[in-house]
């Protein structure tokens, strides 16, 4: 029988046990896999710092000659500041909308009694499995009809609500004891007051998980902005990056500088809210 090290007490799971001689093999595997996963990031960083004259010389892992110049030049080669601004505005509204409207809808589904509640919830849930293949063209035509092409409205309004968010918050609200509501309503608190004063303050973990989800979704989204914007002035950062790639395809160092700039906010948001985010995934992923 395999003797396990002291810190491996919790839950031996068969296969990994075999790997587990002294933990060294474990670490070796984890580091090897981890390196493979992280190498693209290292290369991206290295490339983004490389002087132009060295881009076609044999690649090296760590830059020998650092230069931040690529970042400034990439920033000037395309209206990245404008892309950044557009994406920030769009993201702020989408995050706020998804958090507020999901909380309101989830509250109605959990705490309010009205006819057709179960059916409506099912309909909302089922919108999650409607693929973009069927919504893209009609949504585009609606936005076109409304005269919203190339406006923030087109980027924001269709994505102000999230079925996933409603589901996530509903799961969480269900764990809040209803006695608290009753007590508040005895004290003369209105139904909306209960949502605002009792449910929301108690749901901060779930709300912040949803905020991170929405942030990542909005920041990284590509297809919808691609379809509803034409003007370079309305492009989001992801679109701008893809466009930049088409234009400066072989200027790898500029391209990587742009890529780093575009991906940092999402990675930072994830690193900051990591724990909540992963809880959110397991809460909805496993019981969904």
């Amino acid at each position, binding site marked *: 029988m395999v003797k396990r090290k002291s810190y491996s007490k919790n839950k031996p799971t068969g296969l990994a046990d075999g790997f587990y001689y002294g933990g060294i093999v474990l670490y070796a595997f984890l580091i090897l896999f981890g390196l493979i996963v992280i190498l693209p990031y290292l290369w991206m960083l290295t*490339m983004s710092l490389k002087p132009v004259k060295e881009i076609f010389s044999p690649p090296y892992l760590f830059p020998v000659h650092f230069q931040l110049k690529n970042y400034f030049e990439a920033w000037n080669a395309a209206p990245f500041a404008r892309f950044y601004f557009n994406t920030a505005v769009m993201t702020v509204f989408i995050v706020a909308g998804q958090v507020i409207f999901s909380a309101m809808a989830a509250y109605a589904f959990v705490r309010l009694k009205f006819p057709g509640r179960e059916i409506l919830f099912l309909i909302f849930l089922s919108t999650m499995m409607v693929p973009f293949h069927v919504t*893209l063209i009609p949504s585009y035509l609606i936005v076109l009809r409304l005269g919203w092409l190339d406006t923030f409205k087109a980027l924001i309004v269709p994505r102000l609500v999230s079925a996933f968010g409603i589901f996530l918050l509903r799961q969480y609200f269900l764990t809040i004891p209803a006695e608290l509501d009753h007590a508040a309503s005895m004290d003369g608190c209105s*139904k909306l007051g209960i949502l605002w004063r009792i449910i929301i303050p108690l749901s901060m973990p779930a709300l912040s998980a949803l905020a991170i989800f929405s942030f990542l979704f909005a920041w990284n989204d590509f297809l919808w902005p691609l379809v509803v914007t034409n003007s370079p002035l309305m492009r989001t950062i*992801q679109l701008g990056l893809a466009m930049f790639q088409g234009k400066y395809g072989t200027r790898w160092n500029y391209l990587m500088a742009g890529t780093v700039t575009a991906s940092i906010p999402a990675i930072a948001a994830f690193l900051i809210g990591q724990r909540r985010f992963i809880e959110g995934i397991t809460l909805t992923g496993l019981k969904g």
Partner: protein
Amino acid sequence: MKKSSDIPVAMICLLPSIIIFGLFNIFPVLYSGYLGLNRWDGLKRTIEFIGIQNYRDIIKSIEFWNSMKVTFYYMVGITFFGIAAGLIIALLLNRKFPGQTIFRTIYFTPVITSTIAAAIVWKYLFDPGSGYINTFLRFFRVPGPGWLTSPTWAMPVIITMGVWKRLGFNMVIYLAGLQSISPEYYEVAQVDGAGSIVRFFRITLPLISPITGMLVIMSVIDSFLVFDQIFVMTNGGPLHSTDVIGLLLYRNAFRYFKLGYSSAIGMIIFMVIFIITFLQRRFLSSGEKALW
């Protein structure tokens, strides 16, 4: 307590969601169904009812079947390798040891990285001339292929990136599943003298099978949804070898403006996803009891 009706408050709370879901999710399904039965080319005013002609054309189209085949290739790749990699890493991480969180973070970061940014980096890694992969191979005097410019190699490269990007998600779900398995199962098995391999195949694998089932379905559905990654890396080429269904639809709708025809493609994909989700519901409801 005063008994007042909840209906007005519920209306206020649900109105924004109802309007937006109605306009941009539910109505589009019906509208796509309608458009699919019509011919509407360009953004012309005339729209002509042609019944199931679009569906006939799609079924006869070589491009459509090629896209289905390509999507299936991608699906098999990311499902099998993504789930295997996620499970292996979850098993390695499923114990307390120093640095566990760091490893989890590393494996998960690709999941939240922008697909566009990641695709550009991967495109560069596999660049035939100056990319790291071919430079590495040249060092061993192995001539590297053109990767994304080769009909044979483009899809394997795209699948590799797809696996890289989703293994962290699979890992997190598996980790949660592994942690919900009661240690008693293993203790009993150990008393009975079951070795680690036996314990894995007899206890761990069956107990996490509902999770595996769910992850398979999610990967399958995601394969139909893939767009950004391939749009940047190959845009369907070379020789349509990576022309997944999402690209086919986008091209027909927003390059050729064949709105009726592409709506019909959309409806077919919707039907396929609907059937898969339906089967998953049945599969999960029978398998779920094993764990919860």
